């Protein structure tokens, strides 16, 4: 039979080791969390600046800076999540004007039916209902296969796939023809990688239809106000 004192000592040493180990784990966690938090704090301004520059560059790609004269980034409204745009989060809509007259809207949209995950788009749509240009801002399509929807990855450098939508509206391409050729529409797709092209084409068609329907409200809302769904 073991002496009660011996048992008590053993138990206290187990407890001591456990507490010590836990304290070391806690110390490591705190030290490395501090390291991450410090790096985050130190780099956040730079990261935000480059994200803004990237956004401006993308806006500049779909909407040539010479076509408007207002402060585009200030003349923006917040858009509540729009199912027709494939969005389930708040986004911004920027409004380009020249001499006060509406020129174009720059907005974001997303395709949910890509080959793998969400394809995010930025589109510029003119006041008279033409898709000025669109770009893919984020996607996870197969590298070397479906990623030609991004002109940086498109092997056709002179006329990337995404540029065939430029300056088209439903007056030139009827709504039911706004599809890839494989679906009976008029837009090309690459053989063997139709899904990515179909997702982008259909998403841009939906976005254009939605914008044309709502353009008056989008242009007239007070800057920095919020666009809510008008009807159920």
């Amino acid at each position, binding site marked *: 039979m073991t002496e009660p004192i011996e048992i008590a000592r053993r138990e206290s040493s187990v407890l001591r080791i456990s507490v010590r180990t836990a304290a070391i784990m806690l110390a*490591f966690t705190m030290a*490395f969390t501090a390291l991450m938090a410090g790096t985050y704090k130190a780099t956040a301004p730079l990261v935000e600046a480059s994200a803004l520059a990237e956004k401006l560059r993308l806006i500049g790609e779909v909407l040539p800076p010479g076509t408007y004269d207002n402060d585009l980034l200030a003349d923006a409204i917040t858009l509540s999540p729009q199912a027709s745009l494939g969005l389930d989060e708040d986004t911004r809509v920027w409004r380009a004007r020249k001499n006060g007259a509406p020129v174009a809207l720059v907005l974001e949209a997303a395709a949910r039916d890509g080959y793998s995950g969400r394809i995010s788009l930025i589109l510029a749509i003119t006041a008279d209902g033409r898709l000025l240009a669109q770009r893919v801002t984020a996607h996870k399509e197969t590298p070397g296969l479906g990623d030609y929807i991004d002109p940086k990855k498109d092997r056709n450098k002179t006329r990337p796939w995404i540029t065939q939508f430029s300056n088209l509206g439903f007056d030139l391409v009827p709504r039911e023809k706004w599809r890839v050729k494989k679906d009976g529409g008029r837009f090309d797709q690459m053989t063997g990688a139709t899904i990515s092209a179909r997702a982008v084409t259909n998403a841009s068609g939906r976005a254009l239809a939605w914008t044309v329907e709502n353009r008056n409200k989008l242009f007239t809302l007070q800057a920095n106000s919020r666009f809510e769904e008008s009807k159920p």
Partner: protein
Amino acid sequence: MSAYKEIAWNGIWKQNTILAQVLGLCPLLAVSSNLVNAVSLGLATIVVMLLSNFAISALRALIPYEIRIPVFILIIAALVTVIDLAFNAFLHDLYLVLGIFIPLIVTNCIVLARVEAFAAKNGLRAATLDGLMMGVGFVWVIALLGAVREFIGQGTLFAGIEMIFPSLSGIQILPEDYPGFLIAMLPPGAFFVLGLLIAGRNWLDARANQRLREKRLHDQPPAPNTVAA
């Protein structure tokens, strides 16, 4: 000196992370569909392995044995986060290309494997060299895998290099109208090519061993008085 040489040889060939240990296949197979992506992931992996081996070798005296694995994971994840943020802030152009690969590295168990098997038991210089060399071994295999898949899959090499060096462009090797070979670009193609590479390594090793054995037989005719082992 020869200890360092052995570390280098282990990393590049003998205990190559992919060909011999067959570890870290998830990012390997996902990203090796073309050469530029493969090398990009490889370079990011070198940086992470170098730093995590260094950090853990430096802290190894402070880490209790019982909780070493959670502490290793904590340190690796923290380092990867710091590298990710620093890349984004200071090398933004490169980050746009490599950025998506950096979080993938946390899922690469080879980092944890080297930390546990080597850095936790060895000095700073040896551990750092081991991280570097294991990374180099990873890079050359993933580069080869990426090159083979890109060549078979779309008939090019270095496609997408203009995103890293704007003055360069990819090379079209097979004729422009090459229809591509879809399966090479998809995960099954990665498994096929990886299997062939591993088989190739085993064949080379087997041949080298065979040669060695023949040479020994040739050089040393059966001695009458064998030295006791």
